[in-house]
């Protein structure tokens, strides 16, 4: 009860100085920490990314280094995960393959992100007939059997890494657009936005300063959940022979090689398979955790 006026001043000034969103983020982080599965996902992901990033420093073998006389051998002291039919070290190939898979995952997702967020934000913000038309287009595209088109695209135009990114990104942006549009629409109707408009701020500024920070939450969540879908799609295409081409390898490609020889050399299938599965697990758990943490209204209670 005996707080001096200056203390009170300090407290209130401090409270005013804090930007509005911090408590939401801190709050979310606390919630996330409590979710064991999500934390496992985060840690695993970080470790995997580091391992793949520093692959050249970690293994003594080149990823294309053959040892034809050795052939395929099961895990041993010299080769922790065994070798393939060319005598190439599997651990090395998994790490390098992980680079490609993760890179495709992140880049293609970024494509989807940029396109989807822009599209959805514009539609949600502008509203009215423009919004209706834009979402109609999304509905039509949503109805298309994309898998069929992607197979066709890759067969027709050959296996081009850039095309791969575009094709995959083109499938995933739709969901992002829908989500962003919904969120933006909700925010658009808030009073503070109306106030900003009447104050004369340009739509671009409003979107930048008010809208996007507030949709950041769901965007992060769905981005984290899109990455595994993208990685799956790339693996699927590579498995069919339409995605990543040798000499590059990705986990999908390693798995397809492993399937061919799975009876004699099962480790060639199992280890890449585990790498892919666990990484997808991690991403999905993390994404779910983020969703629960940032959007307390959904599920749980």
């Amino acid at each position, binding site marked *: 009860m005996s707080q001096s006026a200056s203390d009170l001043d300090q407290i209130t000034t401090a409270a005013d100085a804090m930007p509005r969103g911090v408590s939401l983020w801190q709050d979310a982080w606390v919630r996330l920490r409590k979710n064991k599965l999500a934390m496992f996902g985060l840690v695993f992901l970080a470790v995997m990314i580091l391992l793949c990033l520093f692959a050249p420093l970690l293994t003594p073998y080149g990823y*294309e280094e*053959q040892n*034809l006389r050795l052939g395929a051998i099961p895990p041993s002291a010299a080769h922790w995960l065994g070798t393939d039919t060319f005598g190439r070290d599997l651990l090395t190939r998994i790490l390098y393959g992980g680079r490609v898979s993760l890179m495709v995952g992140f880049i293609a997702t970024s494509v989807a992100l940029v396109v989807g967020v822009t599209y959805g934000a514009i539609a949600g913000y502008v509203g009215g007939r423009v919004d209706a038309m834009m979402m109609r287009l999304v509905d039509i595209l949503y109805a298309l059997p994309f898998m069929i088109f992607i197979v066709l695209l890759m067969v027709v135009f050959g296996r081009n890494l850039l095309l791969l990114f575009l094709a995959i990104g083109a499938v995933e942006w739709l969901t992002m657009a829908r989500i962003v549009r919904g969120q933006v629409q909700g925010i658009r109707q808030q009073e503070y936005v109306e106030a900003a408009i009447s104050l004369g701020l340009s739509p671009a500024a409003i979107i930048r300063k008010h809208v996007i920070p507030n949709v950041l939450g769901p965007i992060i969540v769905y981005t984290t959940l899109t990455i595994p879908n993208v990685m799956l799609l790339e693996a699927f295409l590579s498995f069919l022979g339409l995605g990543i*081409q*040798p*000499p590059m390898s990705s986990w999908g490609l390693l798995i397809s090689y492993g399937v*061919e020889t799975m*009876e004699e050399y099962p480790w060639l299938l199992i280890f890449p398979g585990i790498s892919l599965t666990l990484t997808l697990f991690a991403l999905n758990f993390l994404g779910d955790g983020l969703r629960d943490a940032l959007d307390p209204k959904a599920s749980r209670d």
Partner: protein
Amino acid sequence: MTDLKSGLLAHFRAGILAVSAVILLSACGGGEPQLTRVEQGNIDGVLHYGNGAEPKGLDPHIVTGVPENHIVSALFEGLVGKHPETLEPIPGVAESWEISPDARRYTFYLREDARWHNGDPVTAEDFRWSWMRLLTPALGAQYNYHLFPIVNAEAYANGEITDFAEVGVTVLDPFTLQVDLREPAAYFLQILDHYSAYPVHRATIEAFGDLSDRLTPWAREGNLVGNGPFRLTEWQINSHVRVEKAETYWDADTVQLNAVVFYPTENLVTEDRMFRDGQLHFTAEIVLDKIPVYQAEQPEIVRIVPWLGSYYYMFNTTRPPFDDVRVRKALAMTLDRDLLVESVMQGIVDPSYALVPPDTLGYFPPKTFEYDPDAARALLAEAGYPDGEGFPEFELLYNTQESHRRIAVAIQQMWMRELNIPTQLTNQERQVYLENQDNLNYDVSRRGWIGDYVDPTTFLEMYVTDGGNNKTGFSDPRYDEIILREAPATLDRDKRYELYKEAETILIEAMAILPIYTYKTKHLVDPSVKGMPPNIMDHYNFKFISLEPVSDQG
């Protein structure tokens, strides 16, 4: 809540039990040991044959692939056949034949009891009409060139003449056919056992449309009428093709099988499984990595024999740096073929230093170079790229398939290690890859060639100047002279082979192609199969095959 939970859990447990029961029951299937398909087939006289890809069609004048070949050769029969072991010509529909002294006129005497599956007799007119169909331009038959040795056949196929009467095929009487060649072709009889020269049933084809219309359903189950030892009874796409013994066949007494079922087995691993589960008597291929295992444990079922096929890379000699013969030779001399064959291909092919496979009906190709990385480096330096410096990056093209990839990857490494040359591997699927070759739109490309008949010409004729199958830009006048004029006119086989050696030496010295290996065919064959001796054309006449259950064998 507990009430509900235990209730639901109980249901859940019951569900799991039910599902497991279903799985176990369906897997057990009854309790008594069932006969495998192969065992049942041995009893019934039905051969189960792994055939590779799904056949695209069964019209002998239209099809172009090996899987189609197998089925078509069971359903139809040509003038002559091939001896199962020596591959020399034996009588087919033609009982006997006469060759004139200048080897330009062949007269075939057809047997009078040869019948189509609907009972109609097979006549000389059938052959004349069928060959006319093969040569009809509008049909677009891709093997029409097999009959080009016949007088005016090529002109008819190009549309230069339109009256087939001018072509050198004459029906002397219902069972005598006379053929005139524009120049002697020593291998002509061999060609006649190729499916493009088979007869087709005129009435059937005409019932469904014009003879040049390839889209009619005449070659389907229920419609197809052939003249071979078997007739078509079932064809379910991606499932199987079944042919059954034809009682109308003139030599039906020799035929011991009652039926043959052909299975599309594109996936080698699955085919292997099928064989081990007792579902196939014969596989089209053996999985590479399993070969050592089979050879160690069950050598009697493994059949690996030389095949009339050559696997090589070809150079686009119109594009630098491959317009320089020294570069080409350097690349060729850096390949350790023995290592490649042994480790990458598990020893199931033979290293090759030429184009034509050895022992092609007695022909052995010359060897003009060796594995010599040092000499290769010297050559490369001479060409202006010492230690690979300044060598432009180039693409090695191959069509998407595991074995091609393995070889390409290994060779890429060899070139890098020995010559310090970076190779970019590019794989495309077949259609694109073929088109790029046609348009000379490549640097170095994989090539494979399977001979159509047992004579070196089937390989060597590819590389004449501007040959449709050349695709490398190679051209040499002496080579053309030998292949187009001198050799076909030389009837003495030994002398002819000497000429071929000379031509082949020219080709390899120019190194327009980079030989790698010659094929062997690899099959798994169930011990109950008899009458299927291995041969270089991998050709089996189903009329000579029989099945003997293993327990009955001594």
